[in-house]
């Protein structure tokens, strides 16, 4: 019964997301029908929860069934009406064509790939069953993602300081500094379920693993064949840390999915004519905006290189085309920043950026080496990336591969700087937050490897 609540919560929010994505595409659809569903399922819940959050802040609604239905009803009605009026409320307008090429020609390769995908699916399904059936276990879920969702449910309103277990209140500059989208989504599910059920609220996270793998597949599919795209999807989904987080109530897989969607759309804008490029840029801006409302580090780590890339890539089509994507990101991000500033919340992840002092911590480098070379968290992605950089250098210096490489290099360098120069080195040495930072980038790394190896084998020249 409670699983039905998860399903319907996702359905309503996903429907709003689909309409929004369709509206962004306008009269120049670029997505395949199933891609549109995936993008809608990714953007819808996050943006609906943002609207609900600010609706509560404005005093318009409470976190009740009526409040959530009001948000969804208004958004769905308005978007549907707008699309109907523009005569573009069609369910399956076909977007840009995908790259040519099917499954591998050799039977051995086809069967092998299917077996590997099946093995990945088996682990995911088994983990998902447990996700719905087990009680919450992990610290960050207990303290943050679920705890806040429960507090919103009980209070029916925004609450920043939650009673602690020693007659104190939690410091609002810690967990409450995180965007509330994920906790509110759990509140929404609980409101539909008629109460808090761990299985129902945790089961949501499996959706994001599926979206990550699906969106990565289609992002690759626009550049390479079915077989290569499927291989990339397998390599992304089979990484142990990606799978473990994908079937547990953490948020880094969601962040990874939004980054893949944002960058994948950006890559497509480079290959498209002006009219379709605008649509891709809008979609990319939408997904990056969504990303900023998932976890704080997106604002500091991922948005800057993305903005630079957007500027460089969009410039080719005219700076005017960057205005709307920029406005979309601002529309999502700025209200949240205003809320944080007006409530004294921090801009770091539970630690104020301004409080960080600089000093050298070389042991963080050792910890990074251990994580990437001696532990199979990302299987062989680190080695594959190094080899790609060494032997695929002529190809990754420019074009779509260059975009991915630049983004990866920037964010990795920023993470190395943070872990070696600030007190956050503890997150590296204790191997806590560091792995999750790498997890957010791992799918992009795999995409870069796939695109580069594909190019090398095809004999592409720089």
């Amino acid at each position, binding site marked *: 019964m409670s699983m039905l609540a998860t399903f319907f919560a996702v359905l309503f929010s996903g429907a709003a997301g689909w309409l929004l994505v369709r509206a962004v595409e306008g009269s120049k659809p670029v997505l395949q029908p199933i891609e549109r569903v995936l993008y809608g399922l990714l953007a819808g819940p996050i943006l609906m929860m943002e609207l609900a959050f600010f609706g509560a802040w404005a005093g318009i609604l409470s976190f009740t069934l009526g409040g959530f239905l009001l948000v969804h009803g208004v958004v769905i009605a308005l978007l549907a009406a707008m699309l109907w009026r523009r005569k573009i409320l069609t369910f399956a307008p076909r977007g840009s064509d995908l790259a040519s090429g099917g499954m591998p020609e050799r039977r051995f390769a086809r069967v092998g790939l299917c077996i590997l995908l099946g*093995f990945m699916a088996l682990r995911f399904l088994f983990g998902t069953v*447990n996700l719905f059936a*087990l009680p919450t276990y992990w610290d960050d879920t207990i*303290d943050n993602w679920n705890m806040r969702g429960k507090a919103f449910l009980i209070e029916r309103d925004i609450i920043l300081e939650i009673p602690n*277990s020693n*007659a104190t209140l939690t410091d609002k500059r810690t967990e409450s500094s995180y965007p509330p989208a994920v906790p509110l989504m759990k509140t929404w599910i609980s409101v539909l379920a008629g109460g808090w059920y761990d299985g129902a609220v945790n089961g949501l996270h499996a959706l994001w693993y599926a979206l990550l793998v699906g969106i990565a597949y289609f992002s690759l599919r626009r550049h390479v064949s079915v077989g290569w795209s499927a291989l990339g999807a397998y390599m992304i989904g089979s990484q142990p840390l990606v799978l473990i987080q994908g079937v547990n109530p953490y948020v880094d897989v969601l962040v990874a999915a939004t980054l893949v969607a944002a960058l994948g759309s950006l890559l497509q804008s480079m290959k498209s004519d002006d009219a379709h490029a605008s649509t891709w840029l809008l979609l990319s801006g939408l997904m990056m905006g969504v990303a900023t409302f998932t976890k704080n580090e997106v604002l500091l780590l991922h948005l800057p290189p993305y903005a630079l890339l957007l500027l460089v890539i969009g410039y080719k089509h005219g700076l005017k085309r960057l205005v709307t994507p920029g406005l979309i990101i601002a529309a999502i991000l700025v209200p949240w920043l205003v809320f944080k500033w007006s409530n004294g919340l921090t801009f770091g992840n539970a630690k104020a950026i301004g409080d960080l002092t600089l000093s050298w911590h070389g042991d963080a480098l050792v910890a990074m080496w251990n994580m990437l070379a*001696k532990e199979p968290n990302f*299987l062989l992605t680190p080695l594959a990336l190094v080899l790609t950089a060494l*032997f695929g250098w002529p190809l990754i210096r420019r074009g779509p591969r260059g975009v991915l490489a630049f983004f990866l290099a920037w964010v990795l360098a920023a993470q190395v700087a943070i872990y070696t120069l600030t007190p956050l080195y503890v997150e590296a040495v204790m191997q806590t937050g560091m792995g999750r930072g790498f997890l957010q980038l791992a799918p992009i790394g795999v995409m870069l490897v796939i695109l580069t*190896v594909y190019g090398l084998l095809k004999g592409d020249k720089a």
Partner: protein
Amino acid sequence: MRLQLAFLAALAILAPLTARAETLTVLSLREGETNVQWQVFKDMIITRRPDGLELTAGSQTGVLIADITLGDSTDAKATYAGFPHAVGVVTNAVRAGRIYFAWHSPGDVPGSLTPFPLDVPTGRDTVTYALLHRSPQWNPGVDQVALMIPPGMTVLVKEVTFIRWSLPEKIWHGFLSLLSFDTYKLHAINFVWGPQITWNPIHRSVIWNTLPPSGFSGTYALNLALLACLVAVFVLLFRHKRLTQDEKRLLFARRAAMLVLGAWIVLDLRMGAELLTWFSRDFRSYVVAEEGERTLRNFGRFHDFAEFVRPLVADRKSYVLFTPRAYPEVPHMRYFTYPAVPGQDTNDDMWVIYNRPDIAVINSRLTLDGQPVTDEGTVIGRFDDASFVFQVSP
């Protein structure tokens, strides 16, 4: 023909593995079987039993010592190849405790010993192993071995066995160790250790008992092996005179991709199997287990207890909580019972007790080690003998 040659080659390589190569050197302390001369030092009482020597240390650590030659004494710089890797001590003990296996080498200060801990459990005929090869001081020139018994401890020692494994056996156990799986722990959400390589079954049985695990990283070994193969392919290809540069680049890319993909799949199969065992264990221990008997990883029956308590505190703001440890039970209980939050105000009238045999209800009062800590009240819900909910009467 090629298939037959490959089969014969495989047989030739694998055949040595079928020979039992584990070497045992047994020092028996059983009556009539003693094969070395043992001496006693310090304050220790020795009682001869039919099946061994009962050692009781007094106010000082007792020492039982014997002269011995284990390695090739004519080759003082010999490698560990012919020398024991581990020792197993067979004991009877009424109380568990730590004793020490110790040794003396010719270069050591006379009378000094290098100790290596052995945690002896209670029971009869239990074997406790020490992985001597992990001590940098263990060497082929050892001329004395000893057992050191802490003050007040009694243990019956029956046998001291030295074990070494041959190279084929070590290779086989190294392979088996890659298939030894960790359990689903709190750190797994941030990182996983992955396959670890050890060279004998004793080490394999204790890989995961330490943080970090005590083996050599299998992922690192795979990365290094892969790099070596890629370098070999690179060198072989680029020395090839008849191929153009472009052809060499293409061939290298193809072979490198196949090598990396092959290694990826091998590592994925290993890690996938490990994750499936984790999921399977959780499924059996919790999802399909009877309510009240469910356990989850390191939490035992805590979650069933939390579910039991939740309705009893649903209409409250706070309650007093006693658990064996503050973390992780207290924050988890806070989450499960929210908005009722566990507190420390002993004036609170609701007391939730989890797994605390030292807390009981005596004469209608809650007591800690027999001392009353509350006024009179009643147990409004009992989970098990050491876990219940107590409400103080108004």
